[in-house]
């Protein structure tokens, strides 16, 4: 009844987290997306007009990550223009394929084949260029480009170069071998890839293909953050009860005050669990309407419920401790809010712990918010069940028990 009439409290507990989760999922969507999901415009200046340029343009286009641009306003771009446009930030990347690049590769392949032919007692008849200088495919990056992005582009281009070189070499070898008593109907198919790559999930289920995207990280993470914000109403409520004498009145009523406190705790834990499931509904129904991926909940609903209860218990206990330690609602509000922000920042709520430096990861694993998030990620991303959550649950319950004992000791000391 009290909570229903407290519009500010209701807003803080239910409306603000919905807004927070929606905003965070939207703004962190791009950074969370894999490069496969994003399309970058790549300026190409093909001075070669040979097979290498064709391979690079086709290869980049086929990845789905890049849109190859070789004309701007209907005009072919020169190297100088391309550099300027990248430097000004209009494009993130520009690839210059030098004149004669394909010829250089063909000449190199011919040289290798001639060499092999000579050793095999065959005539070395393929033409070889006398060019001494080495050619380079030049890449210009926007100065603001991230290191990981540059690395990905380097790798992709290196692959294309290797592929062109290999293809041309194989082609030359086949051409040379056909001169030596090979029947006309022999296609001489050479399969270079003896061993390939296959991606497989590690979890028990092979059906779900859940990736850690913005929604999958932000919805559980900020839900846990919002659940911990229950510290503020709990602490404020406790301090007001102490100040206005309600606490005294309740302590004077026959029966254990612990029973009243337990009842209150269970209520607040229930509020946390309701909060959690409300946020999950946002991830399942609301965020897809805004063009974001749908939240996947894993397979064990019981495990998620147990973890949500554990997080609620930890958050409620923290609120009771803050309410016991501080003397005014203002003190509790400031400390409570700032401490939760710090615990969430180090606990992997803002950005995943995995991408933090190792010493920060160690500190982060001391945050109760990280225990909750780890458990939820295990359930949602790795599809684990009840049997795999007990370590994190144990930490959350222990955390709650320790805080309650400290609060009890402080209250006892205050009365004495």
């Amino acid at each position: 009844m009290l909570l229903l009439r407290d519009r500010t409290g209701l807003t803080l507990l239910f409306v603000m987290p919905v807004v927070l989760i929606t905003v965070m999922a939207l703004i962190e969507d791009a950074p969370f997306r894999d490069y496969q999901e994003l399309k970058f415009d790549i300026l190409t200046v093909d001075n070669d007009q040979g097979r290498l340029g064709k391979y690079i343009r086709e290869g980049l286009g086929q990845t789905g990550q890049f849109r190859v641009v070789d004309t701007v306003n209907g005009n072919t771009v020169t190297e100088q223009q391309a550099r300027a446009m990248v430097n000004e930030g209009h494009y993130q990347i520009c690839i210059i394929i030098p004149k004669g690049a394909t010829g250089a590769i063909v000449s190199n392949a011919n040289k290798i084949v001639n060499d092999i032919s000579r050793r095999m007692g065959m005539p070395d008849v393929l033409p070889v260029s006398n060019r001494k200088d080495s050619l380079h495919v030049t890449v210009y990056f926007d100065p603001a480009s991230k290191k990981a992005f540059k690395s990905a582009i380097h790798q992709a281009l290196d692959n294309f170069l290797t592929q062109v070189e290999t293809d041309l070499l194989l082609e030359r070898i086949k051409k040379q071998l056909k001169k030596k008593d090979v029947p006309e109907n022999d296609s001489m198919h050479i399969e270079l890839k003896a061993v390939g790559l296959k991606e497989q999930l590690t979890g028990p289920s092979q059906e779900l293909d859940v990736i850690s995207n913005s929604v999958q990280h932000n919805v559980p993470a900020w839900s846990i953050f919002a659940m911990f914000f229950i510290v503020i109403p709990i602490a404020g409520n406790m301090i007001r009860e102490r100040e206005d004498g309600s606490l005294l009145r309740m302590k004077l009523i026959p029966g254990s005050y612990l029973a009243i406190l337990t009842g209150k705790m269970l209520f607040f834990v229930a509020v946390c669990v309701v909060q959690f499931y409300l946020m999950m509904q946002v991830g399942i129904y609301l965020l897809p309407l805004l063009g974001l991926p749908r939240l996947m909940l894993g397979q064990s609903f019981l495990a998620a419920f147990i973890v949500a209860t554990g997080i609620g218990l930890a958050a409620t206990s923290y609120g009771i401790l803050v309410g016991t330690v501080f003397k005014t609602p203002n003190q509790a509000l400031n400390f409570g809010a700032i401490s939760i922000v710090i615990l969430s920042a180090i606990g992997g709520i803002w950005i995943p712990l995995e991408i933090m430096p190792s010493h920060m990861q160690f500190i982060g694993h001391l945050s109760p918010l990280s225990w909750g998030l780890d458990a939820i990620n295990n359930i949602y991303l790795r599809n684990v069940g009840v049997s795999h959550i007990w370590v994190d649950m144990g930490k959350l319950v222990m955390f709650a028990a320790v805080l309650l004992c400290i609060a009890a000791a402080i209250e006892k000391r205050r009365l004495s």
Partner: protein
Amino acid sequence: MRCRGRSTIPEIVESEIIMTSMLVQDLHKTYKGALEPSLKGLSFSFPERSIVGLLGPNGAGKTTTISILCGLVKADAGQVQLFDLTQNAANREAIKQLIGVVPQQIALFPHLTAIENLEYFGNLYGLKGKPLRNLIDQYLQEFGLEKAGNKQIRHFSGGMKRRTNIIASILHHPKLLILDEPTAGVDVQSRTMILQFLRNYNQQGVSIVYTSHLLDEAQTICSEVVIIDEGRAVVQGGTEELIQRHAECRNLEDVFLHYTGHALRD
């Protein structure tokens, strides 16, 4: 002349214990970290069905005394007996049932209505259903709040809050009612009503302990007073008797100043 010290405290004899509603003997209390003890051997007693004013300047030890009487704070030494029960862990729950405490603060939930507040506290006392509702209606009428029962406490005037605060403390029919400045900050009409209620309530057989800095009010309502200063009872007696005991004292305030002096207690 100042007459301070234990000599003015009446000797407690065995026969009185049976008739007293409250017996406080040699209470000592020093809070952890405090430089000075709050109580230094406080003793007093008063008979059943009396209205006793527990008076004293700021820091005299009144709040500590009430906290010990209620069982919220444990005394370092000494004994408290309420009716036939000694205040200890074994009797704490029984004593809670016997006493009602009206705190100085408005110990009610501001976002709940008067009826919701009273039902909540009534439920905690084990009262339920129609009997509780009837009792609430009766008290609301008695305190002139029958039309305000469904209004939230935060919309009440100071006097209405004070009256509801008292009702919340008497729902379980206590034998001893302790009031900490029950008329602080209320208008004359509410004050008159509260004092009249206390007189009527006392006539129904309930003992009342009343603390206030309003000594004219204490003089009109209290049959007995205990004046506490620096953790000790400096005098106890009938209100009129104490006034008459000293020729220079015309009222309770004079008696109070006579025993506690004019020095400021900051």
